[in-house]
């Protein structure tokens, strides 16, 4: 900013755009590509179909309707957040390796936009999927929890947790895609990481007891956010009562995108061996 004051008010055409401006331009282009091409809406269609099936089963199926209403809200919220995160990974993992595979990364790197701005723009597009997915999930949360007064809590808790998760997963996806030669490798690695993070939550109840089990639950961002949402909705805890469970997800939401941004500065074409 100080440099600009010295040079003058009107930047010349040769002046490269600032990081924020070029990131904004890349984000706008990526958002157009995602939403106006219909790719984003196709994902949202699958997302709403899934939420509709779960809501219908929760309401009408005898086995699931056996759930207490708060548990039904918790189940739907957890699925909405988890699948929203999955969609984010899908787009983030395609961000750079997809361009690389389609042969469009070279032209992108030749633009005056700093490489980190490209990463920021692509990250914004990935996170937008979560935001739209969450907005589409709101009617389901309202309908399932309408009689037990959990709508407000589910919305605030779900938004906070889901946004932290979306940022962390965007960071993971961008980090992997920046170093992947092929889209397949990037997607496969991202899903492996996603499954690895989800695995501790699937441990039997016995394994989660004791200090070691508690520690794993708190260190694993997936387990801690699932536990946070469960306590928030099912056990009627306040939003801040289990805030300590969100420490690791919040750290991941900051550190992983920051690492992706650092790695983005070294973005290269990475030609295939033998090419």
């Amino acid at each position, binding site marked *: 900013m100080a440099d600009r004051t010295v040079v003058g008010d009107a930047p010349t055409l040769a002046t490269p755009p600032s990081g924020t401006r070029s990131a904004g331009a890349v984000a706008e282009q990526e958002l157009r590509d995602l939403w106006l091409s219909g790719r984003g809406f196709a994902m949202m*269609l699958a997302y709403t179909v899934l939420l509709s099936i779960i809501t219908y089963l*929760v309401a009408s199926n005898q086995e699931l309707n056996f759930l207490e209403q708060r548990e039904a809200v918790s189940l739907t919220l957890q699925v909405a957040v988890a699948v929203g995160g999955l969609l984010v990974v899908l787009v983030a993992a395609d961000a750079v390796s997809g361009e690389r595979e389609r042969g469009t990364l070279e032209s992108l790197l030749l633009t005056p936009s700093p490489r980190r701005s490209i990463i920021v723009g692509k990250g914004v597009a990935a996170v937008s999927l979560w935001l739209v997915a969450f907005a589409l999930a709101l009617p389901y949360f309202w309908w399932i929890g309408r009689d037990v007064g959990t709508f407000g809590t589910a919305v605030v808790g779900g938004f906070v947790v889901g946004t932290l998760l979306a940022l962390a997963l965007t960071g993971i996806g961008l980090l992997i895609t920046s170093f992947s030669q092929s889209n397949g490798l990037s997607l496969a690695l991202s899903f492996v990481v996603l499954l690895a993070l989800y695995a501790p939550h699937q441990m039997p109840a016995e394994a989660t007891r004791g200090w070691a089990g508690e520690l794993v639950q708190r260190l694993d961002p997936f387990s801690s956010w699932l536990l946070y949402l469960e306590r928030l909705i099912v056990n009627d805890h306040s939003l801040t009562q289990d805030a300590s469970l969100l420490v690791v997800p919040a750290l991941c939401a900051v550190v992983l995108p920051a690492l992706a941004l650092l790695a983005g500065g070294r973005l290269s074409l990475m030609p295939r061996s033998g090419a």
Partner: protein
Amino acid sequence: MRALARIGVAGALLLALLTAQDAQAAESAVVAGGVVVALDQHDVAATPGAKITFASTIRNTGDRPLDGYVAHLNILSTDKSVYVDPEDWSPKRTQYLDELAPGGSTTLSWNVRAVTSGPILLFVSVTSPTARTVTSSGPLNMTVGGQRVVNAGGVLPLVLWMPAGVLALLGATSVRRRRLR
């Protein structure tokens, strides 16, 4: 004669062994009979999702120490239409007791989370690998009421219109793309 003598000795040994086993079994039964299990509550009302904690006191009323004893929490419903999965109600339902001296007692704490509405019955049983009998406490009658399940009324418009709305948006982007070509 020697062979007959050997058979006689073997028979005597066998008889002595069997007698000793019978004596041991009788002793175990006495020990098991010397255990009393009591709960600190008899009736409790709860709503689904509520957590209840109660205690059981295990007393050794016999004249021998109790070793290797295990206490287990049993959860069941007296209404056949109410399904109870004990794992959902209390993931930790087994506790291992330290050696209990004659006349001594120990208190165990149990945590239960009410899951479904209905009449629920809980009791604690105590046994050991050598006890041959199981000693149980009296029942704790838990009445869980006020369960709210999702009302299915009006679900179809929601589950059909939401994907339909997104499908319409997808169609609109497809039309736009064709126009731009």
